[in-house]
């Protein structure tokens, strides 16, 4: 088990390294740097001004040196104004050390957001907390609903209940967030006037039933269908196995067999699927936060990308990749731990 864990961790670190390189490369593409320089040198800069701004602030250094600085394994040089000789930070709204120092992700410095005019580390935790809250409620509603639907459908394969629930879950997997979000807000906010069509108040006044139900519902609906179908398949397989027949022939009631014998084994496979839902949820969060104007991680990602906010986009990229890899690791470990056949070998 330890060896397995070490191997998985090693692969994860390697993946993380490769992905951070890729993210760094794409965010720091030439057109993005140019736009940043134009924005920082007050629009009317000549080609030469732009070039000198980029050189002065270290954007023209070797790619790997810049990557190293961002990660925090190469010392960051202070930016010196060529005329006065004084040390000026890259962006006037963030201070930077005046002496060369390791100052990167590993030191906890995520850089400076040009869109919000503050340090990234001032905005990111707040956004993550808001999104974490959303995810928590989504998981709390999505998982039990999906498992119940899946177990009920898979219990008696081919029955009318199974047919109906299957059609329901197929429909839900055909409904991406931007479709269900639109449909739900038209039905529940515009027509029935039951719920708030915007979660903007959730950021300022805290969440309540009226402003949070629609985002949670929208985000959960896509996952419910998928997890339910996996649970159904797993349940149907378990129900047709030998030991279930033995238990039935022993004289146990149908419900006793389902609850005591089938359920535990049927829930191993969906566990992996639930953990692997996180990457999809992360994308869904971005859509839902845009539709319902909720200020979380997705909002930060969209603002960073649309405002060419290089440091914030890098941070968002890193965080989302880390979340995905972490959930993959947990799903692997959990699967091995839950399934005795794998645990032993």
């Amino acid at each position, binding site marked *: 088990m330890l060896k397995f864990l070490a191997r998985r961790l090693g*692969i994860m670190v390697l*993946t993380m390294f*490769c*992905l951070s390189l*890729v*993210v760094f490369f*794409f*965010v720091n*593409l*030439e*057109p*993005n740097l140019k*736009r940043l320089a134009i924005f920082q040198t007050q629009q009317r800069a000549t080609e030469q001004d732009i070039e000198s701004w980029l050189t002065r602030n270290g954007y023209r250094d070797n790619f790997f040196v810049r990557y190293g600085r961002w990660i925090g394994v190469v010392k960051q040089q202070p930016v010196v104004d060529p005329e006065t000789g004084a040390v000026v930070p890259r962006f006037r709204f963030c201070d930077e050390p005046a002496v060369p120092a390791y100052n990167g992700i590993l030191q906890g410095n995520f850089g400076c957001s040009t869109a919000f005019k503050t340090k990234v580390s001032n905005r990111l935790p707040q956004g993550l907390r808001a999104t974490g809250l959303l995810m928590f409620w989504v998981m709390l509603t999505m998982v039990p609903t999906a498992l119940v639907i899946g177990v009920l459908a898979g219990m008696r394969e081919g029955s009318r209940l199974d047919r109906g629930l*299957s*059609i329901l879950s*197929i*429909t839900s*997997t*055909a*409904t*991406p967030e*931007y*479709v269900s979000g*639109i*449909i739900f*807000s*038209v039905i529940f*906010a*515009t027509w029935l006037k039951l719920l708030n*069509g915007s979660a903007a108040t959730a950021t300022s006044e805290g969440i309540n039933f009226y402003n949070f139900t629609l985002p949670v519902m929208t985000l959960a609906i896509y996952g419910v269908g998928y997890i339910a179908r996996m649970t159904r398949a797993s349940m149907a397989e378990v129900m047709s196995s030998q030991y279930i027949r033995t238990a039935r022939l022993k004289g146990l009631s149908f419900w006793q067999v389902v609850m005591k014998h089938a359920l535990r084994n049927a829930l191993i496979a969906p566990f992996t699927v639930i953990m692997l839902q996180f*990457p*999809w949820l*992360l*994308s869904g969060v*971005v*859509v839902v936060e*845009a*539709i319902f104007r909720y200020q979380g991680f*997705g909002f930060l*990602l*969209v603002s960073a*990308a649309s405002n060419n906010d290089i440091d914030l*986009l890098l941070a*968002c*990229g890193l965080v*989302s*990749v880390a979340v*995905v*890899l972490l959930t*993959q690791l947990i799903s692997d470990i959990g699967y091995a731990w839950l399934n005795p056949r794998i645990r032993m070998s």
Partner: protein
Amino acid sequence: MLQNVGFIGIILGIIGRFWPVWLALIVLLTLSFMFRRRLGLYGHLISSGVGLAGVIIVGFWLFTALFAGIVAPFGPLEQIVVMKHALPGSIEPATGIPFYLGGDKLARDVFSRMIYGSRIVLAIAPAATAISLMVGCLLGLPAGYFSGRIDALLSFIANLVLAFPVILLFYLLVTPGIMDTPVPYAMAGFFFIFPILFLCALFYTGYSKQKAKLITLLGLTLIIGGYIYIGLVFDRDPLNLIHIEPNELNIFVAVAFASSPGVFRIVRGLTLDIKTREYINAALTRGEHPWYIMLWEILPNARGPLIVDTCLRIGYTTILLGTLGFFGLGMSSESPDWGTAIKDGSQFLRLYAWPALVPAIALMSFVLGLNLLADSLREQSLRD
């Protein structure tokens, strides 16, 4: 005040506008039922309720895209100022044809735009899926067959791509700035080479004994494939027949890139399973080339799950395209595709629901059709 045809008028009007689609569907279904016994898998498919529903929905959208010019009463970009945010059913004064599903914020007909939008979706989604299918097959087969180092490397790369949340991938790959860099063209060059490679490998291993047939097939593939390749990737088609807008190329490549690793994983898994079968051993004993075994023994036997996956994947690609449109990535801002239309409509959603609701339901129904089809196909293949 604009005159309105009323609820019944809207329903009847829309059903009437779709007449070429109904006609085509009736012909298709009649022919299908007549020759049901000879059509194999497809014949079984339309005998089940779910499968029939899937075929009808997918067929409906297919014919709508084909006959878009006849079905849609107005052009996708046609603006008629008085019809701004018009209610569904409002009659356009000049022509007397109603805006069946209302007007949007730029006074365009929502119904016509939805019809024309189906063209974009049905052109890009299946094509991008086809490319990712070939990439997935050509990389997944050797990964599963040879295992070892190749498998470890390719699986690692596939997992890298899969670890990206799709939305981040799109924000990195489909931005206006990226058109100035060689990245999209390099990726297009990489992805579009796969169909040519795939066909060449297929013909080369399959017809190595029939020299004449082999040379014609290879020649045809290289000439036609190369011609399309030059037109798409370098935009240097000498006859100017094949041309793709740079932003469309970017979208296409990004979508193919996002869905290839999924196909790779499935093909690899299937190969791992099939290569232990008896008939593969028989082929090995005959001394067949590994690529012959992969392309002519393993691939045809993996077709069942692959067809199901392709159906689901076209739906998934449609959802991805919608996501791109919804975030205004890649597509031009006035494009009638469903994602962009949903984004535009959601701006005034609380006041005017129809501009967003119509493309949303269109997208959902198309994906639902594909999912039903896939579900029914899976059931059929389990029965065999």
